[in-house]
């Protein structure tokens, strides 16, 4: 207990805690429709695009977030379009985009700064990455994500369950799909520097999968995914403080453990 209190005397940990809790909540909520619509890999693709954008911004000496947010939002819209009607198929389209963005990012950094600790922290996350303006931005954007998610909850459920039915009842399916991808893009950009470009997509996918093992209603899955995600993040952050491991990787491992536990529990419940 004293350790925990001591942990929160470091301002950088408090910042990481605030950003991390908000981002993991948003990622988990958005993750439920994304996983159910079979768009899990979009999160992964977007984080690589975000890495590319950050690397370019760093090389040119621009502020990282104002550059990467519009780039990633654009990528999110394009990826969604491609996964709906691309001749090469959704998975191939995402794989191609994410590998290309990663490659561009790596080339740009190696031509300019070289693989510095900055780049390393973008790849695998760093608890030191958050400054005060990041915290303010995360709070604002997460609030926006949460409000939009709650307001459009029924519409999101309907288009996730059945796009063609929603279309005939006059729901603007494309608009909501775009909204979903823009919100995902924002969440990923915010969480990326804490969690790492390689690891952030797990925040989108794991909580939804864990909650789906145990819950039968959509509402239950959404609420549980959010709760599981926040608890896993807190546990991961604490564990990383105690044993001095990178925070992103630790949170992912905690999420994995929760997922496995849910699988086992589901098996027992069913029998």
């Amino acid at each position, binding site marked *: 207990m004293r350790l925990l209190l001591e942990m929160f005397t470091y301002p950088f940990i408090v910042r990481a805690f605030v950003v991390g809790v908000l981002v993991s909540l948003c990622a988990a909520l958005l993750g439920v429709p994304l996983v*159910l*619509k*079979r768009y899990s890999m979009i999160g992964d693709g977007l984080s690589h695009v975000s890495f590319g954008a950050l690397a370019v911004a760093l090389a040119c000496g621009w502020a990282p977030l104002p550059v990467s947010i519009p780039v990633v939002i654009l990528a999110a819209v394009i990826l969604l379009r491609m996964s709906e009607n691309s001749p090469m198929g959704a998975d191939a389209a995402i794989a191609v985009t994410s590998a290309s963005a990663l490659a561009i990012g790596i080339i740009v950094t190696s031509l300019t700064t070289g693989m510095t600790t900055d780049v390393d922290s973008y790849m695998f996350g760093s608890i030191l990455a958050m400054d005060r303006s990041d915290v303010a931005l995360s709070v604002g954007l997460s609030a926006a994500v949460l409000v939009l998610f*709650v*307001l*459009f*909850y*029924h*519409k999101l*459920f*309907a288009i996730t*369950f*059945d796009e*063609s*039915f*929603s*279309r*005939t*009842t*006059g*729901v603007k399916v494309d608009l909501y799909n775009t909204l979903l991808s823009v919100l995902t893009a924002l969440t990923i950009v915010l969480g990326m520097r804490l969690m790492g470009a390689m690891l952030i997509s797990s925040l989108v996918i794991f909580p939804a999968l864990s909650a*789906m093992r145990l*819950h*039968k*209603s*959509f*509402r*239950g*899955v959404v609420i549980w995914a959010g709760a599981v995600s926040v608890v896993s993040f807190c546990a991961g952050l604490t564990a990383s403080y105690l044993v001095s491991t990178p925070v992103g990787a630790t949170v992912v491992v905690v999420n994995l453990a929760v997922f496995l536990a849910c699988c086992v529990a589901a098996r027992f419940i069913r029998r």
Partner: protein
Amino acid sequence: MSETNEKIWIDCRDLSLGYEGQAIWEGLTFQVRSGDYLCIVGENGSGKSTLLKSLLGLLKPLSGTIAWDDSLRRGAIGYLPQQTRAQKDFPATVYEVVLSGFLSAGGIRFFHTPAEKSTALMNLGKLGILELKDRCYRELSGGQQQRVLLARALCAAGELLVLDEPITGLDPAAALDLYRTLDYLNKKENIAIVMVTHDMRGALRYATKIIYAGQKQWFCGTPAEYLASPYGRRFGGETR
């Protein structure tokens, strides 16, 4: 069938349908009236789903007009699409799925109204699946899932159902069950039904009107007229 409050739900005149200027259907004229049971039949690739999309307002005709009744214009079409792969293991209760039929009515609201909730329960009862209300959609059999989607369609529109190959993937008993339910809704509740189907036998048995899609040609008439037509003769030989 009583003709007292007969209504024309969908009025198609001289339609040409197709993609990128290539017409699949030409000169198509027919109406969907209240109490109709219309089956759209034909081989794969003959344009059945093109016609269905147009009737749902998702595809603009190349020429000609489709006029919907005013109540349908507001998005009140009870559509039962083909099931997608993602739906098969979707975590949602039956009640949640059925309530999602009420979308057309609302703007941004977090709660469903009490009237919507009671209508949803009533439709579940009508289809004999009220006791499945809190079950998970993915745990139901194919026939039960189809009934849930039918209840949702009834929530969206109480007077016209549009079904896309509803019995594909059902076992014979479940298919017969679904036909009986549709027949009940059609005869007793006076709900008009438009169905795309591969099951010629079921179509001939229950439909009041048949549209046959052939290559660049079509036929529209009663089942008896269809059987007498050159398109129908070979099917007549099979079923009788």
